[in-house]
């Protein structure tokens, strides 16, 4: 989908059957999306032949691969836990994924994201089924366009399921931010950099639990509560796409070649803001 030329932003967004409350109806974002509209989202599972489970996600212009290995023997052994498996995450960005080029060595940011990803995914996995084992989740960001940690979690959750690891729920993630004093869902790179705040949230829709919550910027407490609810709505939309991706792979009630269903967002609306990256 996002392979389409993204040069002009003649987004033919028909004004949404979906935008519920017309609160900010006339106001448009830089890329023409409604305030609660996600970017185009495409998830494919089982893309890496050598991994036990894998997924590829395109969330806007983010392009991210997730591979899961395990449950397998923990190495080094002293990291193993006698009563449950250890989930290990490694988030890594390709040097060419951002402008300017970044060093391939893991930065502090990468290490923090690896850590919050682990705690976002852990609550969904039956770790106690695999004592002494490790389950390794590797994330490679091929192209970054704002919201990579959310996109990575979305891909990782699908990859974990693809690996056949028993899970209590999927984990869906989505960010909410504030720009021009308005709350918006699923920030693009431009909104991420120019916005007043950014709040990535991961959510287990069946269990109703938030497993990732970070926030930067400036929000009043009421806004923070409202943002959280908006983010959860976004996560639920992501969740549907994750389910579709898995159904497609495993051929459940869906013809194999039917194009993958998009989130409620209109496909056209993914036109990106004109490049504004620094």
């Amino acid at each position, binding site marked *: 989908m996002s392979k389409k030329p993204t040069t002009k932003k003649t987004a033919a967004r028909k004004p949404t059957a979906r935008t519920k409350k017309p609160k900010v109806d006339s106001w448009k974002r830089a890329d023409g999306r409604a305030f609660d509209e996600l970017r185009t989202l495409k998830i494919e599972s089982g893309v890496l032949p050598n991994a036990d489970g894998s997924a590829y996600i395109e969330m806007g212009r983010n392009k991210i691969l997730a591979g899961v290995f395990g449950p397998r023997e923990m190495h080094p052994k002293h990291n193993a836990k006698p009563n449950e498996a250890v989930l290990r995450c490694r988030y890594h960005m390709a040097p060419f994924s951002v402008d300017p080029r970044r060093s391939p060595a893991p930065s502090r940011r990468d290490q923090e994201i690896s850590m919050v990803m682990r705690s976002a995914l852990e609550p969904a996995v039956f770790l106690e089924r695999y004592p002494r084992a490790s389950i390794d989740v590797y994330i490679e960001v091929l192209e970054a366009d704002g919201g990579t940690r959310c996109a990575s979690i979305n891909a990782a959750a699908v990859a974990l399921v693809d690996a056949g690891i028993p899970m209590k729920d999927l984990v869906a993630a989505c960010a909410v931010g504030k720009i021009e004093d308005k709350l918006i869902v699923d920030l693009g790179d431009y909104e991420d950099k120019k916005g007043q705040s950014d709040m990535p949230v991961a959510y287990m829709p069946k269990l109703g*639990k938030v497993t990732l919550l970070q926030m930067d910027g400036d929000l009043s407490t009421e806004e923070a509560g409202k943002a959280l609810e908006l983010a959860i709505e976004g996560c639920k939309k992501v969740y549907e796409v994750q389910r579709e991706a898995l159904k497609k792979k495993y051929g459940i009630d869906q013809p194999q070649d039917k194009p993958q269903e998009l989130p409620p967002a209109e496909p056209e609306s993914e036109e990106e803001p004109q490049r504004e990256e620094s």
Partner: protein
Amino acid sequence: MSKSNIVSHLKQKKITEVLSTGKRMDGRAFEDFRELTIKRNILFKSEGSAEVWLGKTHVMVGVKVGTGTPFEDTPDEGVLMTNAEFTPIANAAWEPGPPNENSIELARVVDRGLRSAEILDTHELCITVGKLVQIVFVDLYVLNYDGNLIDACGAGAIAALMGAKRPTFSEGKPTGEKVPLTVRKKPIPVSVIKIGDNFILDPTADEEDVMDARLTVTFDEENHVCTMQKSGSEGLTVDEIKKCINMAQGKAPQNRVKAIGD
């Protein structure tokens, strides 16, 4: 955190039992902080410093001002860098070596609190546009660990920055004079942790060891949220998150007074 699962299971059981009676192991109520003491400007070689005691948690915060090249996308702005060091003297289980994920999280959460409140006027730190700017290093040095490092270090960082002086430059040359750093806001982090069904503030090391989840919220003077960070291995419901935010909000002003002094 703890490698010893058996010990932490027993510990968890005991702590949860005591919490269910409305008390904590050290006799505090759920929302009580331990005594927070902050001393400012106790080091001479650093541009600013603060020594923080929060119960038995002991942290030294040092501010150094150096020079360096600006980031490409902000050629006329100085830089604020926060770094945390878990020294091996602070805890029997800590070893020397490169920073681990806990120290990185500590540094990043404190750093984001300072940054997203935009506490420094980064333009005043510019010496030569695109070439040379001042870099303010905030080093969080943990000397004794007994839980709740984020709150202790966050308050200490503000205290140290407020007392800090930076060298001045004129046409790219140092003038030999020092002026106080402009500190525009005073963000203060407060962490709430969840153990079982109970929410408590200012956890000790034992309580942190057995916690299910933690939510750190940083507030500025207007009680707006600057930063949030959830960690720990369990999820929180929306209502629980709102409860945590409220609990934290109640404590932030108190800790800010301690950090700023008078």
